[in-house]
Protein backbone atom coordinates (compact mmCIF):
# COMPACT_ATOMS: atom_id res chain seq x y z
CA UNK A 1 0.00 0.00 0.00
CA UNK A 2 2.81 2.27 0.95
CA UNK A 3 4.52 1.39 -2.31
CA UNK A 4 1.41 2.20 -4.28
CA UNK A 5 1.21 5.59 -2.62
CA UNK A 6 4.78 6.30 -3.61
CA UNK A 7 4.13 5.09 -7.12
CA UNK A 8 1.29 7.49 -7.78
CA UNK A 9 2.94 10.34 -5.98
CA UNK A 10 4.42 12.69 -8.55
CA UNK A 11 4.37 15.72 -6.29
CA UNK A 12 8.10 16.39 -6.48
CA UNK A 13 7.76 17.55 -10.07
CA UNK A 14 6.90 21.12 -10.96
CA UNK A 15 3.33 21.72 -11.98
CA UNK A 16 4.22 22.46 -15.60
CA UNK A 17 5.65 18.99 -15.94
CA UNK A 18 2.57 17.42 -14.55
CA UNK A 19 0.39 19.47 -16.81
CA UNK A 20 2.37 18.47 -19.89
CA UNK A 21 2.57 14.85 -18.74
CA UNK A 22 -1.15 14.82 -18.12
CA UNK A 23 -1.98 16.19 -21.53
CA UNK A 24 0.37 13.74 -23.20
CA UNK A 25 -1.26 10.90 -21.25
CA UNK A 26 -4.69 12.11 -22.31
CA UNK A 27 -3.52 12.34 -25.87
CA UNK A 28 -2.15 8.81 -25.74
CA UNK A 29 -5.42 7.48 -24.43
CA UNK A 30 -7.45 9.32 -27.05
CA UNK A 31 -5.06 8.86 -29.97
CA UNK A 32 -6.92 5.97 -31.67
CA UNK A 33 -10.06 8.08 -31.84
CA UNK A 34 -8.43 10.68 -34.04
CA UNK A 35 -8.30 9.87 -37.72
CA UNK A 36 -4.87 8.41 -38.30
CA UNK A 37 -2.96 6.42 -40.87
CA UNK A 38 -1.85 2.90 -40.02
CA UNK A 39 1.69 4.19 -40.34
CA UNK A 40 1.08 6.68 -37.54
CA UNK A 41 -0.40 3.87 -35.46
CA UNK A 42 2.61 1.65 -36.08
CA UNK A 43 4.88 4.53 -35.15
CA UNK A 44 2.96 5.10 -31.94
CA UNK A 45 3.23 1.43 -30.99
CA UNK A 46 6.94 1.55 -31.69
CA UNK A 47 7.14 4.65 -29.54
CA UNK A 48 5.43 2.92 -26.64
CA UNK A 49 7.64 -0.13 -27.00
CA UNK A 50 10.79 1.91 -26.98
CA UNK A 51 9.55 4.01 -24.08
CA UNK A 52 9.20 0.82 -22.10
CA UNK A 53 12.58 -0.46 -23.20
CA UNK A 54 14.00 2.91 -22.25
CA UNK A 55 12.30 2.93 -18.83
CA UNK A 56 13.81 -0.46 -18.10
CA UNK A 57 17.22 0.56 -19.33
CA UNK A 58 16.97 3.79 -17.39
CA UNK A 59 16.90 2.00 -14.04
CA UNK A 60 20.34 0.50 -14.47
CA UNK A 61 21.77 2.78 -17.14
CA UNK A 62 20.30 6.08 -16.04
CA UNK A 63 19.84 5.99 -12.27
CA UNK A 64 22.68 3.51 -11.86
CA UNK A 65 25.02 5.00 -14.45
CA UNK A 66 26.07 1.60 -15.79
CA UNK A 67 26.60 1.72 -19.53
CA UNK A 68 24.61 -1.32 -20.54
CA UNK A 69 24.66 -2.02 -24.27
CA UNK A 70 23.36 -5.57 -24.19
CA UNK A 71 19.64 -5.33 -23.65
CA UNK A 72 18.70 -7.04 -26.89
CA UNK A 73 19.49 -10.48 -25.47
CA UNK A 74 16.59 -10.11 -23.03
CA UNK A 75 14.27 -8.91 -25.76
CA UNK A 76 15.19 -12.17 -27.43
CA UNK A 77 14.58 -14.31 -24.36
CA UNK A 78 11.14 -12.79 -23.84
CA UNK A 79 10.17 -12.96 -27.49
CA UNK A 80 11.36 -16.51 -28.02
CA UNK A 81 9.75 -17.80 -24.84
CA UNK A 82 6.39 -16.44 -25.87
CA UNK A 83 6.68 -17.57 -29.46
CA UNK A 84 7.92 -21.07 -28.65
CA UNK A 85 5.21 -21.60 -26.06
CA UNK A 86 2.47 -20.33 -28.34
CA UNK A 87 3.57 -22.29 -31.38
CA UNK A 88 4.49 -25.55 -29.70
CA UNK A 89 2.03 -25.83 -26.85
CA UNK A 90 -0.52 -23.11 -27.53
CA UNK A 91 0.19 -21.43 -24.21
CA UNK A 92 -1.31 -17.93 -24.09
CA UNK A 93 0.66 -14.74 -23.75
CA UNK A 94 -0.41 -14.00 -20.20
CA UNK A 95 1.26 -17.17 -18.98
CA UNK A 96 4.27 -17.21 -21.26
CA UNK A 97 5.10 -13.57 -20.60
CA UNK A 98 5.82 -14.02 -16.86
CA UNK A 99 7.71 -17.22 -17.63
CA UNK A 100 9.79 -15.32 -20.17
CA UNK A 101 10.45 -12.65 -17.57
CA UNK A 102 11.50 -15.30 -15.10
CA UNK A 103 13.89 -16.89 -17.57
CA UNK A 104 15.33 -13.53 -18.54
CA UNK A 105 15.83 -12.51 -14.93
CA UNK A 106 17.46 -15.84 -14.14
CA UNK A 107 19.82 -15.39 -17.03
CA UNK A 108 20.52 -11.84 -15.92
CA UNK A 109 21.56 -13.10 -12.48
CA UNK A 110 23.83 -15.71 -14.03
CA UNK A 111 25.71 -13.29 -16.21
CA UNK A 112 25.18 -10.26 -14.00
CA UNK A 113 27.24 -11.71 -11.21
CA UNK A 114 30.52 -11.83 -13.16
CA UNK A 115 29.52 -8.89 -15.35
CA UNK A 116 29.34 -6.34 -12.56
CA UNK A 117 32.86 -7.06 -11.48
CA UNK A 118 33.84 -5.05 -14.52
CA UNK A 119 33.66 -1.29 -14.79
CA UNK A 120 33.72 1.43 -17.39
CA UNK A 121 34.46 0.49 -20.96
CA UNK A 122 35.26 -3.08 -20.04
CA UNK A 123 31.74 -3.41 -18.71
CA UNK A 124 30.13 -1.77 -21.73
CA UNK A 125 31.90 -4.05 -24.18
CA UNK A 126 31.23 -7.10 -22.01
CA UNK A 127 27.48 -6.38 -22.14
CA UNK A 128 27.70 -6.26 -25.93
CA UNK A 129 29.66 -9.50 -25.92
CA UNK A 130 27.15 -11.38 -23.76
CA UNK A 131 24.32 -10.26 -25.98
CA UNK A 132 26.12 -11.45 -29.08
CA UNK A 133 27.00 -14.76 -27.43
CA UNK A 134 23.35 -15.45 -26.74
CA UNK A 135 22.40 -14.40 -30.25
CA UNK A 136 24.90 -16.80 -31.77
CA UNK A 137 23.65 -19.59 -29.54
CA UNK A 138 20.06 -18.99 -30.61
CA UNK A 139 21.17 -19.00 -34.22
CA UNK A 140 22.20 -22.65 -34.04
CA UNK A 141 19.53 -23.85 -31.62
CA UNK A 142 17.08 -25.87 -33.70
CA UNK A 143 14.43 -25.92 -30.98
CA UNK A 144 13.86 -22.19 -31.40
CA UNK A 145 14.12 -22.29 -35.15
CA UNK A 146 17.86 -21.54 -35.38
CA UNK A 147 18.77 -18.59 -37.60
CA UNK A 148 15.46 -18.87 -39.44
CA UNK A 149 13.60 -17.80 -36.34
CA UNK A 150 9.96 -18.43 -35.59
CA UNK A 151 6.80 -17.24 -37.21
CA UNK A 152 3.42 -16.96 -35.56
CA UNK A 153 0.81 -17.43 -38.26
CA UNK A 154 -1.89 -14.87 -37.41
CA UNK A 155 -4.64 -16.41 -39.52
CA UNK A 156 -4.57 -19.58 -37.44
CA UNK A 157 -6.20 -17.69 -34.61
CA UNK A 158 -9.52 -15.95 -34.42
CA UNK A 159 -8.94 -12.21 -34.10
CA UNK A 160 -9.37 -10.65 -31.57
CA UNK A 161 -7.75 -13.21 -29.34
CA UNK A 162 -7.13 -11.53 -26.01
CA UNK A 163 -5.52 -14.57 -24.45
CA UNK A 164 -2.88 -15.12 -27.06
CA UNK A 165 -2.67 -11.47 -28.04
CA UNK A 166 -3.32 -12.03 -31.72
CA UNK A 167 -5.22 -9.19 -33.31
CA UNK A 168 -5.85 -7.97 -36.77
CA UNK A 169 -6.35 -4.35 -35.78
CA UNK A 170 -3.41 -2.59 -34.22
CA UNK A 171 -5.61 -0.62 -31.86
CA UNK A 172 -5.91 -3.59 -29.49
CA UNK A 173 -2.14 -3.87 -29.33
CA UNK A 174 -1.98 -0.17 -28.75
CA UNK A 175 -4.21 -0.20 -25.69
CA UNK A 176 -2.61 -3.26 -24.14
CA UNK A 177 0.79 -1.70 -24.59
CA UNK A 178 -0.49 1.58 -23.23
CA UNK A 179 -1.59 -0.28 -20.11
CA UNK A 180 1.93 -1.67 -19.69
CA UNK A 181 3.27 1.79 -20.34
CA UNK A 182 1.36 3.38 -17.47
CA UNK A 183 2.16 0.52 -15.10
CA UNK A 184 5.80 0.78 -16.09
CA UNK A 185 5.80 4.50 -15.50
CA UNK A 186 4.30 4.10 -12.03
CA UNK A 187 6.79 1.37 -11.24
CA UNK A 188 9.77 3.50 -12.21
CA UNK A 189 8.30 6.38 -10.23
CA UNK A 190 8.20 4.13 -7.22
CA UNK A 191 11.61 2.70 -7.98
CA UNK A 192 13.39 6.03 -8.04
CA UNK A 193 12.13 6.79 -4.55
CA UNK A 194 12.78 3.31 -3.21
CA UNK A 195 15.76 2.33 -1.09
CA UNK A 196 17.35 0.60 -4.09
CA UNK A 197 16.89 3.75 -6.12
CA UNK A 198 18.77 5.80 -3.56
CA UNK A 199 21.51 3.19 -3.36
CA UNK A 200 21.93 3.35 -7.08
CA UNK A 201 22.16 7.08 -7.26
CA UNK A 202 24.81 7.14 -4.61
CA UNK A 203 26.68 4.43 -6.50
CA UNK A 204 26.47 6.54 -9.60
CA UNK A 205 27.81 9.58 -7.76
CA UNK A 206 30.67 7.77 -6.13
CA UNK A 207 31.03 4.07 -5.83
CA UNK A 208 33.64 4.11 -3.09
CA UNK A 209 31.63 6.41 -0.88
CA UNK A 210 28.57 4.22 -1.42
CA UNK A 211 30.55 1.19 -0.40
CA UNK A 212 31.85 2.89 2.69
CA UNK A 213 28.29 3.73 3.65
CA UNK A 214 27.64 0.01 3.87
CA UNK A 215 25.81 -0.40 0.59
CA UNK A 216 26.36 -3.76 -1.09
CA UNK A 217 27.27 -2.20 -4.40
CA UNK A 218 27.63 -5.40 -6.37
CA UNK A 219 24.30 -6.77 -5.21
CA UNK A 220 22.44 -3.51 -5.75
CA UNK A 221 23.64 -3.38 -9.32
CA UNK A 222 22.68 -6.98 -10.00
CA UNK A 223 19.21 -6.46 -8.55
CA UNK A 224 18.61 -3.36 -10.63
CA UNK A 225 19.94 -5.12 -13.68
CA UNK A 226 17.30 -7.79 -13.11
CA UNK A 227 14.57 -5.14 -12.89
CA UNK A 228 15.70 -3.61 -16.17
CA UNK A 229 15.73 -7.08 -17.65
CA UNK A 230 12.17 -7.78 -16.60
CA UNK A 231 10.95 -4.66 -18.40
CA UNK A 232 12.78 -5.47 -21.57
CA UNK A 233 11.69 -9.09 -21.56
CA UNK A 234 8.06 -8.07 -21.16
CA UNK A 235 8.23 -5.89 -24.24
CA UNK A 236 10.06 -8.72 -25.97
CA UNK A 237 7.12 -11.04 -25.33
CA UNK A 238 4.79 -8.37 -26.64
CA UNK A 239 7.05 -7.92 -29.66
CA UNK A 240 6.64 -11.61 -30.52
CA UNK A 241 2.85 -11.30 -30.60
CA UNK A 242 2.86 -7.97 -32.37
CA UNK A 243 5.52 -8.55 -35.04
CA UNK A 244 4.73 -12.29 -35.26
CA UNK A 245 8.11 -13.05 -36.78
CA UNK A 246 11.23 -13.23 -34.70
CA UNK A 247 14.75 -13.97 -35.78
CA UNK A 248 17.87 -13.75 -33.65
CA UNK A 249 19.46 -11.46 -36.23
CA UNK A 250 16.60 -9.04 -35.93
CA UNK A 251 15.36 -9.36 -32.36
CA UNK A 252 18.72 -9.73 -30.64
CA UNK A 253 20.86 -7.50 -32.81
CA UNK A 254 23.47 -5.10 -31.57
CA UNK A 255 21.57 -2.31 -33.28
CA UNK A 256 18.58 -2.87 -31.04
CA UNK A 257 20.72 -2.85 -27.91
CA UNK A 258 22.28 0.42 -28.91
CA UNK A 259 19.00 1.95 -30.00
CA UNK A 260 17.52 1.23 -26.57
CA UNK A 261 20.35 3.02 -24.82
CA UNK A 262 20.41 5.75 -27.44
CA UNK A 263 16.77 6.73 -27.06
CA UNK A 264 17.02 6.85 -23.30
CA UNK A 265 20.26 8.78 -23.38
CA UNK A 266 19.11 11.34 -25.91
CA UNK A 267 15.91 11.86 -24.00
CA UNK A 268 17.75 12.23 -20.74
CA UNK A 269 19.16 9.28 -18.79
CA UNK A 270 18.44 9.24 -15.09
CA UNK A 271 15.20 11.18 -15.25
CA UNK A 272 11.70 9.78 -15.18
CA UNK A 273 10.55 11.45 -18.38
CA UNK A 274 13.81 11.16 -20.31
CA UNK A 275 13.30 7.80 -22.03
CA UNK A 276 9.77 8.75 -22.99
CA UNK A 277 10.85 12.05 -24.47
CA UNK A 278 13.71 10.34 -26.27
CA UNK A 279 11.51 7.68 -27.82
CA UNK A 280 8.76 10.22 -28.52
CA UNK A 281 11.05 12.43 -30.55
CA UNK A 282 13.55 10.06 -32.09
CA UNK A 283 11.23 7.29 -33.24
CA UNK A 284 8.81 9.42 -35.23
CA UNK A 285 11.82 11.31 -36.53
CA UNK A 286 13.43 8.14 -37.77
CA UNK A 287 10.25 6.71 -39.25
CA UNK A 288 9.23 9.89 -41.00
CA UNK A 289 12.70 10.72 -42.26
CA UNK A 290 12.74 7.30 -43.85
CA UNK A 291 9.25 7.82 -45.18
CA UNK A 292 10.10 11.15 -46.76
CA UNK A 293 13.60 10.52 -48.03
CA UNK A 294 14.04 6.77 -47.72
CA UNK A 295 13.12 5.39 -51.10
CA UNK A 296 14.14 8.44 -53.11
CA UNK A 297 16.40 7.27 -55.89
CA UNK A 298 19.86 8.78 -55.81
CA UNK A 299 19.67 9.83 -52.20
CA UNK A 300 19.96 6.46 -50.52
CA UNK A 301 20.92 6.82 -46.90
CA UNK A 302 20.17 10.54 -46.60
CA UNK A 303 17.58 9.91 -43.89
CA UNK A 304 20.07 8.11 -41.71
CA UNK A 305 22.66 10.81 -42.31
CA UNK A 306 20.31 13.43 -40.92
CA UNK A 307 19.40 11.14 -38.06
CA UNK A 308 23.09 10.53 -37.33
CA UNK A 309 23.81 14.25 -37.33
CA UNK A 310 21.10 14.83 -34.76
CA UNK A 311 22.53 12.09 -32.55
CA UNK A 312 25.98 13.61 -32.86
CA UNK A 313 24.77 17.11 -32.09
CA UNK A 314 22.91 16.10 -28.97
CA UNK A 315 25.61 13.86 -27.60
CA UNK A 316 28.28 16.50 -28.18
CA UNK A 317 26.49 19.56 -26.92
CA UNK A 318 23.98 18.30 -24.41
CA UNK A 319 25.05 14.91 -23.11
CA UNK A 320 22.24 14.98 -20.59
CA UNK A 321 19.84 14.81 -23.49
CA UNK A 322 16.72 16.73 -24.27
CA UNK A 323 15.72 16.65 -20.63
CA UNK A 324 19.04 18.34 -19.88
CA UNK A 325 18.13 21.18 -22.22
CA UNK A 326 14.81 21.66 -20.45
CA UNK A 327 16.50 21.69 -17.04
CA UNK A 328 19.03 24.19 -18.28
CA UNK A 329 16.34 26.56 -19.47
CA UNK A 330 14.64 26.24 -16.13
CA UNK A 331 17.76 26.96 -14.15
CA UNK A 332 18.52 29.99 -16.27
CA UNK A 333 15.05 31.31 -15.61
CA UNK A 334 15.29 30.72 -11.91
CA UNK A 335 18.42 32.84 -11.73
Amino acid at each position, binding site marked *: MEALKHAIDFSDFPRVDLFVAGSVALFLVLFPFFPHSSFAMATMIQFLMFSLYGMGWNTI*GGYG*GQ*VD*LGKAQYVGIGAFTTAVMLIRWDIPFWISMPIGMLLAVTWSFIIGY*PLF*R*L*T*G*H*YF*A*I*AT*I*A*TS*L*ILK*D*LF*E*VWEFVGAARGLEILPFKYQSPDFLRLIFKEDVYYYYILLGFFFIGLLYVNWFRKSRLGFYLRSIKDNEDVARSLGINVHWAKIKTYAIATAFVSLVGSFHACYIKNIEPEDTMS*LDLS*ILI*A*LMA*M*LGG*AGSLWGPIIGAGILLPLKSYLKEWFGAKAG*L*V*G*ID*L*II*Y*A*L*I*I*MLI*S*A*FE*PRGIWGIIEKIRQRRRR
Partner: protein
Amino acid sequence: MDILFSSIIAGLLFGMVLALVSLGLTIIFGVMDIVNFAHGEFLMIGMYTGLLTSQVTGMDPLLGLPVAAAIGFGLGVLCYYGFIRYLLRGPMLAQLLGTFGLMLFLRNSALLVFGSEDRVVHHGVLVGKSFDLGMGVIIPATKLAAAGLSVAAFLATWLLMNRSRIGKALTATSLDAQGARYMGIPTEKMNALAWGVGGGTVTIAGAVLVNFWPVNPFVGLLFTMIAFTIVALGGFGSVPGAFFAGLVVGLITEIPGFWDFFTYTFDADWMLNVPMTSFKYMMVYVTYFVIMVIRPRGLFGWKH
Protein backbone atom coordinates in the same frame (compact mmCIF):
# COMPACT_ATOMS: atom_id res chain seq x y z
CA MET B 1 48.55 -32.70 -39.37
CA ASP B 2 48.34 -30.41 -42.37
CA ILE B 3 45.12 -28.98 -41.09
CA LEU B 4 46.62 -28.22 -37.71
CA PHE B 5 49.61 -26.43 -39.20
CA SER B 6 47.67 -24.43 -41.72
CA SER B 7 45.11 -23.45 -39.10
CA ILE B 8 47.74 -22.21 -36.68
CA ILE B 9 49.54 -20.23 -39.36
CA ALA B 10 46.31 -18.82 -40.74
CA GLY B 11 45.15 -17.93 -37.25
CA LEU B 12 48.35 -16.10 -36.43
CA LEU B 13 48.31 -14.26 -39.73
CA PHE B 14 44.71 -13.22 -39.42
CA GLY B 15 45.42 -12.28 -35.84
CA MET B 16 48.10 -9.87 -36.98
CA VAL B 17 45.70 -8.41 -39.52
CA LEU B 18 43.12 -7.90 -36.80
CA ALA B 19 45.77 -6.40 -34.55
CA LEU B 20 46.61 -3.91 -37.26
CA VAL B 21 42.96 -3.00 -37.55
CA SER B 22 42.77 -2.51 -33.78
CA LEU B 23 45.97 -0.49 -33.42
CA GLY B 24 44.31 2.84 -34.11
CA LEU B 25 41.61 2.14 -31.58
CA THR B 26 44.12 1.34 -28.89
CA ILE B 27 46.15 4.49 -29.57
CA ILE B 28 43.08 6.68 -29.34
CA PHE B 29 41.89 4.97 -26.22
CA GLY B 30 45.31 5.12 -24.67
CA VAL B 31 45.42 8.86 -24.96
CA MET B 32 41.91 9.94 -24.16
CA ASP B 33 39.72 7.13 -22.81
CA ILE B 34 37.22 7.07 -25.60
CA VAL B 35 35.94 4.03 -27.42
CA ASN B 36 35.28 4.76 -31.03
CA PHE B 37 32.33 2.99 -32.64
CA ALA B 38 33.22 4.54 -35.97
CA HIS B 39 36.51 2.70 -36.09
CA GLY B 40 35.34 0.15 -38.64
CA GLU B 41 34.04 2.99 -40.79
CA PHE B 42 37.54 4.44 -40.95
CA LEU B 43 38.64 1.03 -42.17
CA MET B 44 35.92 1.12 -44.79
CA ILE B 45 37.05 4.55 -45.93
CA GLY B 46 40.60 3.26 -46.17
CA MET B 47 39.39 0.40 -48.31
CA TYR B 48 37.53 2.73 -50.63
CA THR B 49 40.59 4.98 -50.84
CA GLY B 50 42.80 2.10 -51.90
CA LEU B 51 40.19 0.97 -54.39
CA LEU B 52 39.57 4.37 -55.93
CA THR B 53 43.21 5.41 -56.21
CA SER B 54 43.94 2.23 -58.09
CA GLN B 55 40.88 2.60 -60.27
CA VAL B 56 41.36 6.26 -61.07
CA THR B 57 45.11 6.27 -61.60
CA GLY B 58 45.43 2.70 -62.80
CA MET B 59 48.31 2.17 -60.39
CA ASP B 60 48.76 -0.67 -57.99
CA PRO B 61 46.46 -0.36 -54.98
CA LEU B 62 49.50 -0.53 -52.73
CA LEU B 63 50.50 2.90 -53.98
CA GLY B 64 47.26 4.10 -52.45
CA LEU B 65 48.72 3.49 -49.01
CA PRO B 66 50.18 6.98 -48.55
CA VAL B 67 47.00 8.52 -49.89
CA ALA B 68 44.97 6.44 -47.49
CA ALA B 69 47.26 7.38 -44.62
CA ALA B 70 46.93 11.07 -45.46
CA ILE B 71 43.16 10.85 -45.77
CA GLY B 72 42.89 8.86 -42.56
CA PHE B 73 45.09 11.30 -40.69
CA GLY B 74 43.16 14.27 -42.02
CA LEU B 75 39.82 12.68 -41.28
CA GLY B 76 40.92 11.74 -37.78
CA VAL B 77 42.07 15.26 -36.99
CA LEU B 78 38.93 16.70 -38.55
CA CYS B 79 36.74 14.40 -36.49
CA TYR B 80 38.61 15.41 -33.39
CA TYR B 81 38.36 19.16 -33.85
CA GLY B 82 34.89 19.08 -35.35
CA PHE B 83 33.24 16.63 -33.02
CA ILE B 84 35.18 14.53 -30.53
CA ARG B 85 36.54 17.58 -28.71
CA TYR B 86 33.03 18.48 -27.63
CA LEU B 87 32.16 14.90 -26.91
CA LEU B 88 34.98 14.54 -24.41
CA ARG B 89 33.24 16.84 -21.95
CA GLY B 90 30.29 14.49 -21.57
CA PRO B 91 29.95 11.23 -19.68
CA MET B 92 31.11 7.94 -21.10
CA LEU B 93 27.65 6.95 -22.32
CA ALA B 94 27.32 10.09 -24.42
CA GLN B 95 30.77 9.45 -25.84
CA LEU B 96 29.91 5.93 -26.87
CA LEU B 97 26.65 6.91 -28.47
CA GLY B 98 28.16 9.99 -30.06
CA THR B 99 30.70 7.87 -31.86
CA PHE B 100 27.87 5.55 -32.76
CA GLY B 101 26.26 8.55 -34.45
CA LEU B 102 29.54 9.23 -36.21
CA MET B 103 29.51 5.65 -37.39
CA LEU B 104 26.00 5.96 -38.81
CA PHE B 105 27.01 9.21 -40.45
CA LEU B 106 30.13 7.88 -42.15
CA ARG B 107 28.51 4.63 -43.19
CA ASN B 108 25.50 6.26 -44.79
CA SER B 109 27.57 8.96 -46.41
CA ALA B 110 29.57 6.18 -48.03
CA LEU B 111 26.32 4.58 -49.08
CA LEU B 112 25.21 7.84 -50.62
CA VAL B 113 28.46 8.35 -52.48
CA PHE B 114 29.51 4.84 -53.46
CA GLY B 115 26.26 2.87 -53.47
CA SER B 116 25.89 -0.47 -51.80
CA GLU B 117 27.58 -2.70 -54.38
CA ASP B 118 30.50 -4.83 -53.37
CA ARG B 119 33.63 -3.69 -55.05
CA VAL B 120 36.91 -5.45 -55.48
CA VAL B 121 40.33 -4.47 -56.71
CA HIS B 122 41.14 -6.30 -59.92
CA HIS B 123 44.79 -5.77 -60.53
CA GLY B 124 47.77 -5.38 -58.31
CA VAL B 125 50.86 -7.07 -57.01
CA LEU B 126 48.99 -8.73 -54.19
CA VAL B 127 45.74 -9.53 -55.92
CA GLY B 128 45.03 -13.21 -56.40
CA LYS B 129 48.52 -14.32 -55.36
CA SER B 130 49.26 -16.82 -52.68
CA PHE B 131 52.32 -18.73 -51.54
CA ASP B 132 52.30 -22.46 -51.06
CA LEU B 133 54.66 -23.32 -48.24
CA GLY B 134 53.98 -27.03 -48.37
CA MET B 135 52.38 -29.03 -45.57
CA GLY B 136 49.08 -27.64 -46.80
CA VAL B 137 49.99 -24.15 -45.67
CA ILE B 138 48.89 -21.64 -48.25
CA ILE B 139 49.24 -17.97 -47.47
CA PRO B 140 47.41 -15.33 -49.46
CA ALA B 141 49.79 -12.52 -50.39
CA THR B 142 47.43 -9.86 -49.06
CA LYS B 143 47.32 -11.36 -45.62
CA LEU B 144 51.08 -11.74 -45.56
CA ALA B 145 51.55 -8.11 -46.53
CA ALA B 146 49.00 -6.96 -43.97
CA ALA B 147 50.65 -9.07 -41.28
CA GLY B 148 54.07 -7.67 -42.12
CA LEU B 149 52.68 -4.16 -42.05
CA SER B 150 51.06 -4.97 -38.74
CA VAL B 151 54.34 -5.98 -37.12
CA ALA B 152 56.04 -2.90 -38.53
CA ALA B 153 53.27 -0.58 -37.42
CA PHE B 154 53.25 -2.00 -33.91
CA LEU B 155 57.00 -1.67 -33.58
CA ALA B 156 56.88 1.88 -34.90
CA THR B 157 54.08 2.81 -32.53
CA TRP B 158 55.83 1.23 -29.62
CA LEU B 159 59.03 3.12 -30.44
CA LEU B 160 57.09 6.33 -30.94
CA MET B 161 55.36 5.97 -27.61
CA ASN B 162 58.45 5.06 -25.62
CA ARG B 163 61.40 6.68 -27.32
CA SER B 164 60.34 9.98 -28.85
CA ARG B 165 59.43 13.30 -27.26
CA ILE B 166 56.02 13.31 -28.86
CA GLY B 167 55.40 9.80 -27.61
CA LYS B 168 56.30 10.84 -24.09
CA ALA B 169 53.97 13.80 -24.39
CA LEU B 170 51.22 11.47 -25.58
CA THR B 171 51.84 9.11 -22.70
CA ALA B 172 51.83 11.98 -20.25
CA THR B 173 48.54 13.21 -21.67
CA SER B 174 47.02 9.80 -21.30
CA LEU B 175 48.23 9.39 -17.72
CA ASP B 176 47.08 12.75 -16.47
CA ALA B 177 45.73 15.24 -18.96
CA GLN B 178 45.51 18.08 -16.48
CA GLY B 179 48.99 17.51 -15.15
CA ALA B 180 50.33 17.36 -18.67
CA ARG B 181 48.70 20.68 -19.43
CA TYR B 182 50.42 22.28 -16.46
CA MET B 183 53.72 20.93 -17.73
CA GLY B 184 53.22 22.83 -20.96
CA ILE B 185 52.15 19.94 -23.13
CA PRO B 186 49.52 21.04 -25.65
CA THR B 187 47.04 18.33 -24.77
CA GLU B 188 44.51 19.43 -27.36
CA LYS B 189 47.09 18.95 -30.06
CA MET B 190 48.15 15.66 -28.55
CA ASN B 191 44.59 14.39 -28.66
CA ALA B 192 44.21 15.51 -32.25
CA LEU B 193 47.48 13.80 -33.06
CA ALA B 194 46.25 10.59 -31.49
CA TRP B 195 43.12 10.74 -33.62
CA GLY B 196 45.17 11.46 -36.70
CA VAL B 197 47.55 8.58 -36.07
CA GLY B 198 44.70 6.31 -35.06
CA GLY B 199 42.74 7.16 -38.18
CA GLY B 200 45.83 6.90 -40.36
CA THR B 201 46.82 3.42 -39.20
CA VAL B 202 43.38 1.99 -39.72
CA THR B 203 42.94 3.51 -43.17
CA ILE B 204 46.31 2.05 -44.15
CA ALA B 205 45.04 -1.29 -42.94
CA GLY B 206 41.96 -0.76 -45.08
CA ALA B 207 44.02 0.05 -48.17
CA VAL B 208 45.93 -3.20 -47.75
CA LEU B 209 42.90 -5.31 -46.97
CA VAL B 210 41.04 -4.14 -50.05
CA ASN B 211 43.45 -6.22 -52.10
CA PHE B 212 41.63 -9.25 -50.81
CA TRP B 213 38.35 -8.31 -49.21
CA PRO B 214 35.43 -6.91 -51.14
CA VAL B 215 34.33 -3.52 -49.85
CA ASN B 216 30.85 -2.15 -49.31
CA PRO B 217 29.60 0.54 -46.92
CA PHE B 218 28.61 -2.06 -44.32
CA VAL B 219 31.93 -3.85 -43.79
CA GLY B 220 32.83 -1.76 -40.77
CA LEU B 221 30.70 -2.95 -37.89
CA LEU B 222 31.94 -6.51 -37.51
CA PHE B 223 35.53 -5.32 -37.66
CA THR B 224 34.66 -2.70 -35.05
CA MET B 225 33.26 -5.33 -32.73
CA ILE B 226 36.29 -7.55 -33.09
CA ALA B 227 38.62 -4.58 -32.65
CA PHE B 228 36.73 -3.70 -29.46
CA THR B 229 37.23 -7.13 -28.01
CA ILE B 230 40.88 -7.17 -29.01
CA VAL B 231 41.60 -3.79 -27.48
CA ALA B 232 39.73 -4.60 -24.30
CA LEU B 233 41.24 -8.05 -24.10
CA GLY B 234 44.72 -6.63 -24.39
CA GLY B 235 43.90 -4.00 -21.82
CA PHE B 236 42.74 -0.59 -22.93
CA GLY B 237 45.59 1.59 -24.06
CA SER B 238 48.21 -1.13 -24.08
CA VAL B 239 49.96 -1.33 -27.46
CA PRO B 240 51.71 -4.69 -26.95
CA GLY B 241 48.53 -5.96 -25.32
CA ALA B 242 46.54 -5.26 -28.48
CA PHE B 243 49.06 -7.16 -30.55
CA PHE B 244 48.96 -10.27 -28.42
CA ALA B 245 45.21 -10.10 -28.01
CA GLY B 246 44.99 -9.89 -31.79
CA LEU B 247 46.95 -13.13 -32.08
CA VAL B 248 44.71 -14.78 -29.49
CA VAL B 249 41.56 -13.72 -31.33
CA GLY B 250 43.02 -14.78 -34.66
CA LEU B 251 43.70 -18.25 -33.29
CA ILE B 252 40.22 -18.44 -31.83
CA THR B 253 38.61 -17.74 -35.19
CA GLU B 254 40.51 -20.78 -36.45
CA ILE B 255 39.00 -23.12 -33.87
CA PRO B 256 36.91 -24.79 -36.60
CA GLY B 257 40.22 -25.81 -38.15
CA PHE B 258 41.47 -27.37 -34.92
CA TRP B 259 38.15 -29.09 -34.56
CA ASP B 260 38.55 -30.57 -38.02
CA PHE B 261 42.00 -31.73 -37.10
CA PHE B 262 40.68 -33.71 -34.19
CA THR B 263 37.74 -34.93 -36.22
CA TYR B 264 39.93 -36.47 -38.87
CA THR B 265 42.64 -37.62 -36.50
CA PHE B 266 40.22 -39.58 -34.35
CA ASP B 267 37.87 -40.27 -37.24
CA ALA B 268 34.99 -39.18 -35.06
CA ASP B 269 31.88 -38.93 -37.17
CA TRP B 270 29.80 -37.12 -34.61
CA MET B 271 32.30 -34.28 -34.62
CA LEU B 272 31.67 -33.68 -38.30
CA ASN B 273 28.17 -32.50 -37.62
CA VAL B 274 28.94 -29.94 -34.96
CA PRO B 275 28.44 -26.52 -36.58
CA MET B 276 31.74 -25.12 -35.38
CA THR B 277 31.91 -22.42 -38.02
CA SER B 278 28.70 -20.95 -36.62
CA PHE B 279 30.41 -20.52 -33.27
CA LYS B 280 33.41 -18.71 -34.69
CA TYR B 281 32.67 -15.24 -33.41
CA MET B 282 30.81 -16.43 -30.37
CA MET B 283 33.99 -18.05 -29.18
CA VAL B 284 35.79 -14.73 -29.45
CA TYR B 285 33.21 -13.10 -27.21
CA VAL B 286 33.19 -15.98 -24.76
CA THR B 287 36.96 -15.78 -24.45
CA TYR B 288 36.73 -12.07 -23.89
CA PHE B 289 34.12 -12.52 -21.20
CA VAL B 290 36.00 -15.27 -19.40
CA ILE B 291 39.34 -13.49 -19.44
CA MET B 292 37.71 -10.27 -18.30
CA VAL B 293 36.12 -11.97 -15.34
CA ILE B 294 39.48 -13.41 -14.33
CA ARG B 295 41.48 -10.28 -15.12
CA PRO B 296 39.15 -7.27 -15.05
CA ARG B 297 41.80 -4.99 -16.57
CA GLY B 298 42.58 -7.18 -19.56
CA LEU B 299 45.78 -9.04 -20.27
CA PHE B 300 48.15 -6.08 -20.18
CA GLY B 301 45.90 -3.31 -18.98
CA TRP B 302 46.67 -0.66 -16.45
CA LYS B 303 43.93 1.84 -17.19
CA HIS B 304 40.26 1.49 -16.47
